[in-house]
């Protein structure tokens, strides 16, 4: 062995001299720098990882659905909420830190990250009341005009904080009488969902304080068929899907929320069997008026089960356009079940589907064709946002 190696080494040593003249010039020295982000693309998506098994270490991954590259990361602390500003230029994270990592003095804070640099540019310290819960669109949100930020509080008494992001200050706290979370509703209104199935809407004055409040009629029944807290952004407001597959579209653009008649994702024979489920059950392409829903077969209590199929609906006709079974997508084996869906808003849309295997599947949103599977985009990717 050793003598054979000697011979080979000697032969190659000679070869080295023979080849010396052919060698290209040496590679130049490199100069380390910090990578700059390109201009935001329509297929960029912010993938939230709760990091449930190491829950003080949640983060948001910025991922490119065209190049399949991770573009960067925004750290997010413990049980955070997060959202994007209306212009898409800022990520807002509402989170909690402990002075000794997992314990010690609690600091609740809202952090603002410049999406062009992924640097945190500002923080606003909150009272220690932030709703520590799974992410939805309504844990923390901007007002429609981007001038205020609202943060849901649960202590477990429910209220919310009103923040001025430009000034970096907390303007105040408004009690919501048991109704929860912050749904933006025009430039100066905040709506919350109530156990009664009603919507509480608080109107703010110029200083961010309450000027009036109003309670809507009930639009769902929390006993018979509760709606997911998650909400799906639609034109002018949000759609709330129910555990049994009813779609409640709510227009939040006016002075009071306006409810469209509910329509169903499921036929009479499917009802109670096929259900929406997961951690972000639906997404809407607002230009194409298409809704994508993660669907599974299950009973009561299965509302967090991942989808075995993605169903596609026309929001205008309420007709189902397609069923895309996850199990037979592509040729890459068992993809698991779908916990979260998001769709890009451009004319050649991409559907993102995060699975219970922690992968993010990239699909053509028009055909359902699988383009890519990004393996383990975090531990527990439970929500995805794009502007």
């Amino acid at each position, binding site marked *: 062995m050793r003598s054979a190696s000697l011979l080979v080494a000697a032969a190659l040593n000679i070869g080295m001299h023979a080849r010396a003249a052919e060698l290209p010039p040496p590679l130049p020295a490199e100069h380390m720098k910090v990578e700059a982000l390109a201009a935001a693309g329509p297929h960029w998506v912010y993938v939230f990882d709760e990091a*449930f*098994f*190491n*829950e*003080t270490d949640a983060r948001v991954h910025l991922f490119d659905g065209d190049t399949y590259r991770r573009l960067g990361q925004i750290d997010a602390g*413990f*049980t955070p909420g997060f959202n994007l500003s209306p212009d898409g230029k800022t990520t807002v994270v509402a989170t*909690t830190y*402990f002075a000794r*990592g*997992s*314990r*010690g003095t*609690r600091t609740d804070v809202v952090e603002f990250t410049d999406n062009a640099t992924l640097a945190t540019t500002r923080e606003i310290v909150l009272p220690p009341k932030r*709703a*520590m*819960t*799974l992410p939805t669109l309504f844990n923390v949100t901007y007002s429609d005009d981007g001038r205020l930020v609202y943060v849901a509080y*649960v*202590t*477990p008494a*429910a209220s919310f904080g009103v923040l001025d992001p430009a000034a970096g200050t907390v303007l105040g706290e408004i009690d919501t009488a048991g*109704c*929860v*979370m912050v749904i933006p509703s025009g430039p100066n209104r905040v709506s919350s*969902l*109530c*156990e009664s199935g009603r919507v509480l809407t608080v109107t703010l004055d110029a200083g961010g304080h309450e000027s009036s409040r109003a309670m809507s009629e009930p639009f769902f029944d*929390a*006993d018979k068929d*509760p*709606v*997911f*807290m998650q909400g799906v952004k639609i034109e002018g407001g949000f759609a709330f899907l129910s555990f*049994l597959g009813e779609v409640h579209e709510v227009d939040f653009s006016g002075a009071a929320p306006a409810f469209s008649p509910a329509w169903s994702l499921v036929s009479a024979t499917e*009802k*109670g*069997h096929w259900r929406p489920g997961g951690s972000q059950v639906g997404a809407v392409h607002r230009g194409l008026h298409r809704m994508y829903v993660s669907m599974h*077969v*299950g*009973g*009561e*209590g*299965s*509302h*967090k089960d991942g989808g075995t199929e993605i169903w596609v609906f026309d929001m205008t006709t309420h007709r189902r356009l397609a069923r895309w079974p996850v199990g037979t997508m592509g040729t890459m084996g068992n993809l698991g079940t779908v916990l979260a869906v998001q769709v890009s808003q451009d004319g050649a849309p991409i559907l993102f589907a995060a699975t219970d295997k922690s992968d993010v599947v990239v699909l053509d949103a028009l055909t359902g064709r699988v383009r890519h599977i990004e393996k383990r985009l975090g531990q527990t990717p439970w929500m995805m946002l794009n502007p």
Partner: protein
Amino acid sequence: MRSLDQLFEHSSRALARRTSRRSLLAGLGQILTGSALLPLLPIDRAGRAQAAEPKPKSQTAGPESCEYWKYCAIDGFLCSCCGGTSASCPPGTTPSPITWIGTCQNPGDGRDYIVSYNDCCGKTSCGNCDCNRNEREKPMYRPSRNNDLNWCMANADSNYHCSVSVILGVSEK
């Protein structure tokens, strides 16, 4: 600790009393349409009425299994896999005085029990025996039935470690 325990006992038992009647009514209303019947279980569980394919349940699943009957609305880590038991917190953690409530049927006697789910707090995620069951679990606008909230929220150390299930009593019929 003692005062926290007393607070817990008081508040969640009171809540259980309020809750059990409503659950009972819901249960009675749905019993005759039940399709999710389990072997040897004389009554259907409320809310399971429209179940098409309920998850398999085992009468013999022990407290280190997510299938254990008391865990019917735990979404988190089982304290019994983290140094605690099904009803006790691991050493060095602190129970949450506030809680969510479930109603679970014990396959051993067929009874529905009101169960308090408490989080154990003050250490980082246990990370073992991840369990996600949501029978009769409701979204955050009904917090007493919601398991998405971190129920350590009101603890001095509000980090979430794991969850226990504590029998409060039989759901009154």
